């Protein structure tokens, strides 16, 4: 729950606590502050970007308690108490298989959609570890890319899926 801090200088401010890419944060925020702006402006986590203002493009996708959300469509206060993973927190020492396969399969050109695309793909593979090509296309429908024509993104996600299913792959 969001607590309004007693004695705050500005009564409109709300105190929220989050864990972002493993680091704990407590900040007073305006109730209207979008989660993506909290990440970018307040925390300097600029790996997550904004590509539209209508929740269509998915460039801002992050994981919120393990599920993908468009962080432009959530208020920061709605993330109070949540654990957030951005593309910057995805690698655990080594690159995540989805990150690795995006580079291996040339699934990015300008790369502006890539952070969100990777996070959506991670979520998709958690839900469906062995998606068909069509299931990948449908599963990534909420993320727009203007450069790649999606061909290599689909290939990358299939390759990552195979890697993640292999014995000894990270859970």
């Amino acid at each position, binding site marked *: 729950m969001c607590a309004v801090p007693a004695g705050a200088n500005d009564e409109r401010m709300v105190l929220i606590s989050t864990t972002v890419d493993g680091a704990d944060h407590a900040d007073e925020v*305006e109730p*209207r*502050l979008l989660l993506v*702006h909290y990440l*970018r*402006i307040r925390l300097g*986590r*600029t*790996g*997550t*970007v*904004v*590509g*539209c*203002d*209508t929740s*269509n*493009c998915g*460039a801002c996708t992050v994981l919120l308690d393990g599920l993908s959300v468009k962080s432009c469509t959530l208020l920061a206060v709605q993330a109070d108490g949540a654990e957030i993973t*951005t*593309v*910057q927190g*995805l*690698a655990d020492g080594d*690159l995540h298989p989805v*990150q*690795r396969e*995006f*580079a*291996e399969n*040339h699934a*990015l*050109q*300008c*790369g*502006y*959609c*890539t*952070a969100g695309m*990777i996070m959506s793909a991670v979520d998709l593979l958690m839900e469906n570890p062995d998606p068909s*090509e069509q299931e*990948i*296309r*449908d599963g*990534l*429908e*909420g*993320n*727009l*890319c*203007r*450069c*790649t*024509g*999606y*061909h*290599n*993104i*689909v290939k990358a996600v299939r390759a990552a899926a195979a890697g993640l299913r292999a014995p000894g792959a990270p859970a």
Partner: protein
Amino acid sequence: MTTQAAPPAGRVTGQPVRRKEDARVITGQARWTDNLTLPGLAHLAIVRSPMAHARIGKADVSAALEQPGVIAAFTGRDLAPDYGSLPTAWIVSDDLIVPDHPPVAADEARYLGDAVAVVVAEDPYQAADAVEAVQVEYEPLPAVVDPVAALADGAPLVHAGQATNRAFTWSFSGGDYADTRRRAKVVVSRRFVQQRVMPTAMEPRAVLAEPFPATGEFTLWTSTQVPHFVRLLMSSVCGIGEHKLRVIAPDVGGGFGGKLNVYAEEAIALAVARRLGRPVKWTATRGEDYLATTHGRDMIQDVEIAAARDGRVLGLKVDLTADLGAYLQLLTPAVPLLGRYVYPGIYKFAAHEFTCQGVFTTKTPTDSYRGAGRPEATFAVERIMDELAAELGLDPLELRQRNWISHDEFPYTTVTGLTYDSGNYEAATARATELFGYDALRREQAERRQRGDPVQLGIGVSVYTEMGGLAPSRWFGRHGYTVGGWETASVRLLPTGRVEVIAGTSPHGQGHETTFGQIAADAVGVPFDDIDVMHGDTDVAPWGLDTYGSRSIVVGGEAVLRAARQVVDKARVVAAHMLEVSPGDLEFGGGRFSVRGDPDASRTIQDVAFAAFAAHDLPPGADPVLLAEATVDPEAFSYPHGTHLCAVEVDTATGLVTVRSYVAVDDVGTVINPMIVDGQVHGGVTQGLAQALYEEAVYDAGGNLVTGSMVDYLVPSAADVPPYVTDRTETPATTNPLGVKGAGEAGTIGSTPAVVNAVVDALRAYGVTDIRMPCTPERVWQATHGDA
């Protein structure tokens, strides 16, 4: 097909080398302009006209100044002394009207979204609030939306000071078209409409200007394809010495022509930073980007083809009306000019008549969009060829074969005066039809037509060529372009044998760090990982003419190659001295100088680099700095070509078009990195397919952009497009030493006509002879069932 010999072992050129760019992008460490922050950074937001055309009355920013966090607010009149008019760089005709284009409108707003005032605040939310508090009185003026109506006598004027909305007229003729038409047994004409589209780079534009008041210097970070143009032109617009303006294009999230410009917001940010003595940043929202970034296409094409009964094309007539929008941006008037030259496509005929009128309307200016004129031209000729084939009862491929330039006829000079140096349309088409299963699909189509299948199969053909490698400065000069088209690169061999390449082009997703790195790695003989490629910062790369028109690898790639070879030549002098032979006695390969006939006597390039740097024992005239700079200005364009084949299924009950298969066999000359070329084709084809089926920027009669968000403007998702089959033929360009032709625009140019030809082909039996793009279910259904 010309087959290249296999590359020698160890070479990285020609290999699908993974990209240097990716490590920072996949980990969220890319440097987008909006990521940047500076001490004292203020945030700029723009008040935009809510009307297509209005006289600006009183503009009052006082309430905005009362808002929390607001630092300053300016009207167009306030800022008028701070800068000049935004420029156009291509004076395409003597009669061209170049209207004044203030970065912030002071007296009259001429399109929805035209800037009318500016606010600056401590944070972006406060700036957005302050926008709402600015009061502007507007006196509505008539919107001018339809370019044909805009040319009528008495039409309301976009620019009241001009006599007409016609910005320019050109005409061109080759041969005697009128006589040819009289003699022709078959004449087919159509009106094609290139709808207005929006480039939609995923990164909205952003600008950050930092002033240094003590010295009068400025640094401008901007999400642009053309930092060198921005430096040259903004220094003039804002009255800043060119030497005092540093422009940086950091990581740029796509462009597609939308960032090939010099924009109002760059001038505004510089002007406001200068006034406030503080850095200011502006970042477009998507809605703002759709209003304030140039749009593409928007032409009406009246096309007529004249042919003999056997299908021999005799002549082509094109009458073009180009909607320019409200102002001339950097290359606005040149887009149809670039198209003009490739209307003949791949075909041999002697008579051609071309006219074009550019028209002002009260809409966002149009300018380059991936291909810039050449996709429109290719669409027209490839669509009319299909219509001619239908008229003659010929297979569309057969008609093309009867008319195309055969591989043994190159170099070939077309009726518009371009000399195509090389090509092999037969080889690309043979490979494409094989991959596509053309004959089997034609049989299936006939069978489904026969049994009245409610889902009809359509097959679309497009065999294109284009003028790539936009360069020849002399050609540009003859055609009214203010600047040249040369390109430059520097190569530095560092003391440890690592190499820095400084490129004058400025990528936004194309992977220059990788492809230029491949060229340099092979030329200098060092590992690919030992190369760093820098670009996009006028302090680092002071010269360059940037990235557009499939020019980077063709012009910039050759510059890298030449500079790298010159560095090796400098190192050779040092190596010869070390080995006590003359430079002519040395062979160089694999990063090693060896004495001819005595391979044991050798030095690595790394050893030579350090010896040069140490300079303890240099021969006379040798330089410890192993640095070379090379500039290239090709004599001619390059001519990529290809054959694209598309199969669609059209549900006649619903009008829904589904792409069943798509084959693209492109010939972009010698390939430096096949992985990157395939990626360019995938993305290009998708953008062209999107124009054919999904995208249209729609204005209502009042001049309102009704597709001003991604909710309304259909950028396709992964679920909307098919997988692609791509392959290549490789006919090296004869006009540059790498043999490259450019790959950035080919996919877009080839695909739009292939898709629309497929849709029309599916419905030919229903009497359909054209469907306006985008071929939405509604339009397809209406074409199939009549408008009733």
